């Protein structure tokens, strides 16, 4: 508890110490995901990404992974739904 309070007081982003997945959306055409574990499902209409805690589902049309590297990935296409599970 004390450690959390100190970290909050120092205003360090939580993804640095907590390994939280960071999701950045640009409009409905691009999504950047950092600190993720892997892909669970990959089709043109559905992409499911395993986060450190839980998963996130992208639904849409012509979805594809622009790049897929060790610490970040980018999804492009027409994103209709983003759902946390």
């Amino acid at each position, binding site marked *: 508890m004390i450690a959390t309070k100190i970290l909050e007081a120092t205003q360090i982003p939580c993804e640095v110490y907590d390994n939280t997945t960071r999701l950045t959306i640009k409009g409905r055409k691009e999504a950047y995901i950092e600190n993720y*574990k*892997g*892909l*669970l*499902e*990959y*089709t*043109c209409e559905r992409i499911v990404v395993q986060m450190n805690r839980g998963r996130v589902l992208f639904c849409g049309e012509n*979805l*594809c*992974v*622009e*790049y*897929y*590297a*060790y610490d970040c990935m980018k999804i492009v296409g027409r994103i209709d739904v983003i759902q946390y599970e």
Partner: protein
Amino acid sequence: MSFNTFLKGECRILATGAYLESFLNLCKRNGICMYRSSSTEKGVIFSAYYLELERIKQAAKKTCVEVVLLEEIGLPFLMQKVLHKKATLLGIFFCMLILFLCSSMVWSIQMEGVEQVSIQEIGMVLEQQGVHAGMLKSSLDTVELSSCIRQKIDQITWVSCKINGTKLYIDIKENDGYIGKEVSIQPGDDLVSSTDGIVHSIVAKKGIPIAHKGDAVTIGQILISGQVPIYNEAGEIARLEAVKADGQVWIEHILNNVIQVQAYEEIFYRDYRKKWKIGKRKREELEGEAICIRKCNEFLDSLEKKGLQIVQKNVTIKRDNFGWKGNLSVTVLEGITRYE
């Protein structure tokens, strides 16, 4: 495609199988970067760098996924194709060899600063030294060549030879000044004239003065004799006593010289067929006149450095079709002195 991607090489891969997501996750854990991926009915198509191809195949084998190379773009693939052809390899090898051999030879010789010395004369010296177009650069000693040219041609005072690329540059400075005639001193003890002219003044310290003021003398003529007559009581010459003649004699004579500056500056060079070629550049009006004046002044300075006293000088510069001609007529006093 960026230049970086072209250098690294890009593979377009189709991955098919039941565990595609596992395959992609394994690739990600192994640090393989995949990009431009798209999901199709057959499977997932993605791009990766050429260096990561082997690890992708290993990951595919582990996850029971089949990978098919759809496209190979970039330098590594291009090199593979080229290196598999022996004729191309041989061609590259011989091309490099010929390039190396050609660059280690002297293919042309260029001379600068040659105005009065004959080109053929310098060419003869070069031929004697074995310098010609097509010779190896390593067998050419520029220092030795410089000193050889300077020694064999008296009129050249300074030579610089340097090789730049496959060209031998010979920079020459000629002696524009007055070269005095060598005096042939007679074996006796007499003081003799080293030039033609008129005696301006004569002071004998030892010996008997033969020439007098106003006499016209020629080269080799005795000015002060070393044979001193000894008279007896009767006033007759009893004997001649030999002394080393000494004294100071000034002889006035006129030096004429013509300085010629050509309207075209010539650049000489020798091509690979060992033929001399002449390139020309027209001099500007002021430039030619300035060169002519400079050379005249250099000539006058050279006289003063040699200890000649200039009594009168007459310099005229004329422009004709061939260039500039400086006519110098200098009346000088030349001191003929011999000290013991």
